[in-house]
């Protein structure tokens, strides 16, 4: 059956609620795009048009915003989008090797999706968790810290079985300079 591109009544009510929070329809665009991506997986042409129509915006404008941010997918992507940080700290800790490992393991190149539609591999800029690198983000939300090749292999297996890794709180290392300062006084 053809997928239906429409928002349900509840979703429309939520959009109306979002819309009320902003002075212009344009300003409400990002949360609504987010909602649409959660629902449809990625922002296809039909979804862009649906969002534009729902907010009375122009499709070109919606597309411009969607392509500006890497966390919106304007291309079909796998069920799990793995964004591996290759920015400075993670790189120093071996992220480039991990990326190659991931590519070999899944048989795809950076930016591609596995034929079974399960995984998309991408490199990304700093995820803001440099202290626990190398870091990877799944589907724009769940972080996996302190990666190694073994941890990656294990992660892939878990995801294949449909198990999302648990949220892990990584405590910041102690701050020696603060300690020194307090012990001085």
């Amino acid at each position: 059956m053809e997928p239906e591109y429409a928002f349900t009544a509840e979703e429309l009510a939520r959009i109306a609620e979002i819309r009320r929070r902003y002075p212009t329809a344009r300003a409400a665009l990002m949360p609504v795009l987010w909602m649409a991506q959660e629902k449809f997986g990625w922002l296809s042409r039909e979804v862009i048009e649906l969002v534009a129509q729902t907010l009375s915006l122009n499709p070109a404008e919606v597309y411009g915003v969607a392509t500006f941010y890497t966390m919106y997918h304007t291309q079909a992507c796998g069920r799990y989008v793995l964004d591996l940080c290759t920015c400075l700290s993670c790189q120093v800790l071996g992220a480039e090797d991990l990326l190659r490992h991931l590519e070999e393991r899944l048989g795809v190149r950076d930016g591609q999706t596995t034929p079974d539609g399960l995984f998309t591999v991408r490199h990304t800029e700093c995820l803001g968790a440099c202290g626990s690198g190398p870091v990877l983000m799944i589907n724009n939300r769940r972080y996996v810290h302190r990666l190694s090749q073994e941890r990656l292999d294990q992660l892939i297996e878990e995801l294949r079985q449909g198990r999302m890794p648990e949220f892990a709180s990584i405590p910041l290392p102690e701050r020696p300079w603060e300690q020194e300062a307090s012990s001085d006084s």
Partner: protein
Amino acid sequence: MPKVYIDDDVFEFEGRPKILEFCLQHGIELPYFCYHPALSIPANCRQCLVEVGQLVLNRETGQPELDAEGKVVVRFFPKLMPSCATEITDGMVVRTHRSSALVRRAQRENLEFILLNHPLDCPICDQAGECPLQELTYKFGPDSSRFEFVKVHKPKRIPLGPRVVLDAERCINCTRCVRFTEEISRSRQLTIIQRGDKNYPFTAPGMSFDDPYSMNTIDICPVGALTSADFRFRARAWEMASTPSICTGCARGCSIYIWTRHNRVERFTPRHNPLVNDYWMCDEGRLSYRRLNENRLDGPHVREFEGLRAASWEESLRRAAHLLRSAPPEQIAVLASASLSLEDLYVIRRLAFEVLGTPHLDFLRHEDPSFEDAFLRLRDRTPNRTGCELVGISPGPDGLPVQQWPQALRDGRLRLVLVFGDDPLGTGAWPVPEAGEWIVASSHWTETASRAQVLLALCTHAEATGCFVNQQGVLQRVRPAKASKGMDRTLVPEMGKSRLDHHATPFDRWWGHEHYFDCRPGWELAQGLMRELGSPVDYTGPEAVFAELAQAIPALRGLSYAAIGLQGVRLDLHPQPVA
């Protein structure tokens, strides 16, 4: 009055002008890309940066403070300011590249940045020769780039729509095209997609940039990123000559340039005219230039047995006069065309009423409601209907209006039709009549032309001089943009000359004779017939005809070619009687 100090000059100003606009108006050149006088100001290209400061005034005296050396003290903004977006205030001090090394450096280094990922493919780029990026780089840019790494590559040769092709690598993201679709044509079909060094203008996925005004983005694109699907790779800017003219596609009569090469018309581009079309024209009008090259009638013809054969001007005019003499005046009808100039219409009217003595004079209305829109396009597809009304192209006493002519031809009330520049049989205006004879003056091979006993070759508006009055009552004049056969382009002072005309050796100039047609303007043909019919008239040229028109028609009183100029004049079409 408030004052502004720009480099070493003092200017008085009124209102709240922006620095860039003010400088350009006062002949001070500043480089810019994203600014366009008809669009909003995003200040994104940073090419127009200047130093801006304010005189320090003494609080007590209100006089400028002086430093130890007796010079005025200026408090400058900590950073350079974009002149396009900065309003002038009283006592402002502006330093451009003429007086500031800092500004010169900013201009140079900004260009280096803009060119960082630019492909530098000017030798194969359509924009070369009329490219602000190329010109400003010569004037203000660095002599070379220090960037030795692989450039960012982007899509090339992408049809954005049916008429506009994108080369994203050449784009400098000034957003002029996006702003055009948002603010002028309002189709909102374009946006900038992606981010950082990957961005370029594009449509929403699956959508086509088919805006009926899309090709204006090609003109305002300051680089070669947007090019014309039609004109791509056809001619270099310096090989062509451009002549100010108008578009005859509808009753708006947009001001344009006609570009020719080897005497062939290659393109139309809009010409700024605040009275008519501002900076714009519609795509359909722009592409109507093709008509000036195709299917053209070359030289006069006469009917012999069943066919038409080429004849000399003398023979064909004599044959036409003979036919006209042998029919009783009330059986002759004269059809003028609302695509002819005032000058043509005026002499044709004299021919009909004064020499032939027929009352049947009229013109056809060509209306197309589907063509009209809320911007420039008008349903009246003829450029000079107002002119026809002004000159008086309408039936005299007892004259039949044109709608009744087909019937009158059938029942024998009319026998001979003299057609100037229209095609009543081919445009579906009339059913093809079985009876009647035709003398036709036409610029193209048409259905009507093929029925003629005598066929006279008429100039198009690109080969003639004459005036047109648009629906808003703006009178504009056209000049010959291409030569007809036997005419030496270089001797016609008003004809546009190419850079090759001016600077190249004779061997590098235009060649070929295919695009010269043996044709004459309507007023000259009408005058030729009048002479053959024994009424010698002798206008020395269109200007002499216009001088007479200016006497005869109140709305034109006092006008001359010099007064009309390049922009034209708005006529008072309904003068109020003096109370």
